[in-house]
């Protein structure tokens, strides 16, 4: 089985778009991605095709920000507070309803594709039956107001690879780990290093935890965003990842990108076979950071041609799909070089 080397990757295809793409999910083995964006549309692209053409599946009334794939449906969420179930077999919207009282920030499917999780600025994570759309559970605990009296935001959520755990993360850096079966909160973690409150110069805040991911064995949790920002007019600090031994409640590593890779880590995904993770994001430009969660080291850093808001990695681990400001694109990873054969005389 081949292994793929982070430093050996190159852009192989990109599709320019007029909108800002904010969410992406990959239908495994198909090369098809479903994107959502600032035009409110849920769009399908077959990136395996020579010239990928967009197919519009559904439209939200404001920015669409989250999208999940269940095999049968694509479930999308947006700032119109709605979740929309679109059946892939016939393209019909089988249900659409207001799922949160404020903006929906992210929508993800459990690994077995039976449960959908959505998070919104009403500071609630809701779990839904992926098939019939029924509400299964509400996870509450994130504060609706920041310590400085402004509305907070619940940005991110993720399942563990076995589907038993769920993590949620908010504006001020509060990360919670939940037991999916019971809805019990297992741990609360402090990732406030990803949130900047400016008490003197500008008197507002920026940042927050924009991405979370469990390591494949579920023992560690990664939280992504930006480091402390001096001038909060801009996303003007290196991207940052904090790694937690969540059961101990301890931060084990803090990873800062090189100074030239500024902005927010918007998505963290693990290679299905090689153990490393890729963190994608951006500010005024984009970046990919490849790292090792066990050692807390960055393996490779590179620029992306746009601020990346969402990314996925193929099941075989050889391709990265990313969506961002005005484009969706594919990168292919190169194989690790085989050991050189001994020279013979």
């Amino acid at each position, binding site marked *: 089985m081949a292994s793929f080397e982070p430093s050996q990757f190159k852009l192989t295809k990109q599709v320019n778009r007029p909108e800002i793409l904010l969410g992406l999910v990959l239908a495994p083995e198909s090369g098809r991605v479903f994107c959502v964006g600032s035009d409110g549309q849920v769009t399908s692209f077959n990136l395996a095709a020579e010239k990928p053409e967009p197919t519009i599946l559904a439209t939200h*009334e404001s920015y669409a920000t989250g999208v999940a794939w269940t095999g049968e449906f694509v479930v999308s969420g947006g700032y119109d507070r709605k979740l929309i179930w679109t059946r892939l077999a016939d393209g019909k919207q089988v249900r659409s309803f207001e799922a949160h009282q404020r903006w929906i920030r992210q929508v993800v499917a459990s690994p077995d594709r039976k449960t959908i999780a959505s998070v919104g600025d009403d500071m609630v994570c809701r779990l839904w039956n992926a098939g019939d759309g029924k509400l299964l559970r509400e996870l509450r605990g994130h504060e609706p107001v920041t310590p400085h009296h402004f*509305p907070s*935001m619940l940005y991110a959520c993720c399942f563990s690879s076995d589907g038993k755990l769920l993590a949620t993360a908010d504006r001020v850096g509060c990360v919670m780990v939940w037991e999916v079966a019971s809805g019990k909160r297992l741990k609360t973690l402090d990732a406030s290093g990803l949130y900047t409150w400016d008490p003197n110069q500008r008197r507002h805040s920026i940042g927050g935890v924009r991405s979370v991911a469990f390591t494949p064995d579920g023992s560690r949790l990664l939280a992504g965003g930006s480091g402390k920002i001096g001038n909060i*007019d*801009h996303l003007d600090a290196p991207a940052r990842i904090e790694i937690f031994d969540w059961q101990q409640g301890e931060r084990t590593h803090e990873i800062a990108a090189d100074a030239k890779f500024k902005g927010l880590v918007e998505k963290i995904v693990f290679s299905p076979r090689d153990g490393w993770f890729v963190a994608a994001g951006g*500010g005024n430009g984009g970046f990919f950071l490849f790292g090792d969660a066990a050692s807390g080291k960055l393996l490779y850093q590179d620029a992306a041609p746009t*601020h990346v808001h969402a990314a996925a990695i193929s099941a075989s681990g050889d391709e990265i799909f990313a969506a961002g400001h005005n484009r969706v694109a594919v990168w292919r990873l190169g194989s690790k070089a085989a050991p050189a054969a001994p020279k013979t005389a």
Partner: protein
Amino acid sequence: MTTPASDERHERHETRLGRRGFLAGTAATAAALAADMTGLNVLKEQALAAELKRQEKRVILFWLAGGASQFETFDPKPGRPTGGPFRAIPTAVPGIHISELMPKMAQRIGHTAIVRSLNTRIADHGGGAELMQLGRRDEPSIRFPDLGAVVARELGRIDSEVPDYVSFYSSTEGRGSATRQAGFLGSRYAPMFLTAGTSPEYLQPLKTMSAVDHRERADLQAALGRQFARGRELPAVSSHSQAYARVRGLMASERLFDIEQESQAMRDRYGPTLFGQQTLTARRLIDAGVPFVKVGRAWWDSHGENFETHLELVSELDHVMSTLIDDLKSRGLLEQTLIVTLSEFGRTPQINQSLGRDHFASAWSATLTGCGVQGGSVYGKTDENGQTVVDGQIGAAPLFATIYQALGIDYEKEYQVGARPIPLTDPGTEPIDTILA
């Protein structure tokens, strides 16, 4: 335990006491007249000016420093590529929609006139701030007074011991662009500039001196001053006496800056943020006779994360501004108080890679609320993407003429500065009549 109703009665009683205390005439009137750098003009128009001052009109300027976005406030473009993610919501006035970030103001828009057609051309902070606080740019040979100084000059009572012009600016960013100049009107009309909290520093009498000692020293100074001034009718002597009188007045006005004098219920209404607290202080000040208070709220310069920034700052503005409107209305002060929201410019229709908006002076908005304004009105129009003004384009000067007209100040009046007559607004400037009551 007091009830809210008894709290309110208590506050009104306090207010009346405050007014009587601070608007009482003083012996410093003649000194103040002599110290005015446009004194000849004062004497010529004294009767008209006195009538204007009797009307006790006031201004609270919300200076949204850094540049608030018109899209996320008063000129939303939902569904357009430039519009951003926020919805437009209907207001209490049919046909007028504003950003969903302002639900409280939507219910009170009947008191507010929206100007959606500012094209002020200057998109740098320094230049824009100067333009939008003076109504024009300084000339090499002359420095113009800012809006607060003009209002202090025209509406302040010459014999008042309260400050004429108070300016709050607590954030450090943009403070250098927070124009605070009396220009040719002279330092008499410069603001009391507060950079921390809600109260001026160094206003309290020395703890080592009793109130009796303090008063006796002041009486002695006044007696010696009168004796010295006898037969010496010089501006410098008058100004010196006036300075002492005003310092005593300012020290006595310490209580006006103390929001602890308000009930907890009232403080809760304005909210816990510094902007809310300063706005409550501003209401106390104008209630006591201060004609102009600027509350600088910085910093709105959202080159990155425009929508998150505006979610924070517009939510705060919506709450504080609507609370102020309700409070002034319940006190019978809204009809004589003009609330202005103004920035140095607006923000770009284009959304950059950081999901920010940049500086934009070609098509943006301001609002006037209360005194002299046709509430529930909109002037001007931008195109469907908010990129250009398509109807009613104006610059800073007509907006300032409108503000002056709403306050009853003759926007065509001239000040005589040395040998040169200086008009309050450039010749040919007209106010926006359709938004005036």
